[in-house]
């Protein structure tokens, strides 16, 4: 384990801070330009969800190692209202904020692994992983 970084997401600039931290970590791990962009964009979408829907939360960035593989793990955690229908939130084009609705399904496509857990009234945790190839 190479340690964990964490960014509190309270305002719009925290989204930029989380992005920059993620890009830095991805670069350090040796990810190429395209994967760096994928990871940075995924962090941006997750941080934006926290900012818009949950009224604050945290983004954790971990460098991970498993057997021969190295990767980056992003965890977005909030104590917001939760997502009542996860399946619906994972449909392309679904949005409740009038945005483009690329949100979660887009993040899933950008990364290698995607986990989500949400309880109404308690909050949401989204965890995504990208492996170094």
């Amino acid at each position, binding site marked *: 384990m190479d340690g964990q970084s964490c960014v509190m997401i309270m305002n719009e600039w925290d989204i930029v801070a989380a992005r920059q931290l993620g890009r830095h970590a991805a670069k350090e791990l040796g990810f190429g330009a395209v994967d760096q962009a994928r990871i940075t964009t995924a962090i941006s979408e997750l941080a934006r969800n926290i900012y818009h829907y949950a009224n604050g939360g945290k983004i954790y960035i971990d460098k991970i190692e498993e057997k021969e593989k190295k990767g980056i793990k992003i965890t977005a955690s909030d104590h917001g209202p939760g997502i009542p229908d996860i399946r619906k939130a994972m449909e392309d084009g679904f949005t409740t904020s009038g945005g483009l609705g690329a949100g979660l399904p887009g993040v899933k*496509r*950008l990364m290698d692994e995607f986990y989500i857990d949400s309880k109404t009234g308690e909050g949401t945790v989204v965890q995504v992983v990208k492996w170094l190839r």
Partner: protein
Amino acid sequence: MMKTSKIPILKLYNNLLISIQWELDDKTAMQFQEDLLKKIHETGATGVVIDLTSVDVIDSFIAKILGDCVNMSKLMGATVVLTGIQPAVAITLIELGIELEDIHTALDLEKGLELLKELED
């Protein structure tokens, strides 16, 4: 707290030129949208080139702002060309599920200006 930065908008004949040189935060992007429309109104520009060569991340929100800029400018009689989109940005935008439909694009600033000229003729 960080200050919202202003993106400079240059006028060249009938066109406006914008080169976005740093990472866009939401406030800067929204301020830019407003500034661009004001500038079109003031100058009567008919063409706009927004150069994104130095932008290495475009997420769904920034993409929406850019798309809105294009459509709003169109309402005011100005054609927008986006130029300099990096390979990594093009790949992530499509994977994210964002299609910038009906938007004029060109490889670089020079080709963007040529395209505007062709569109005017």
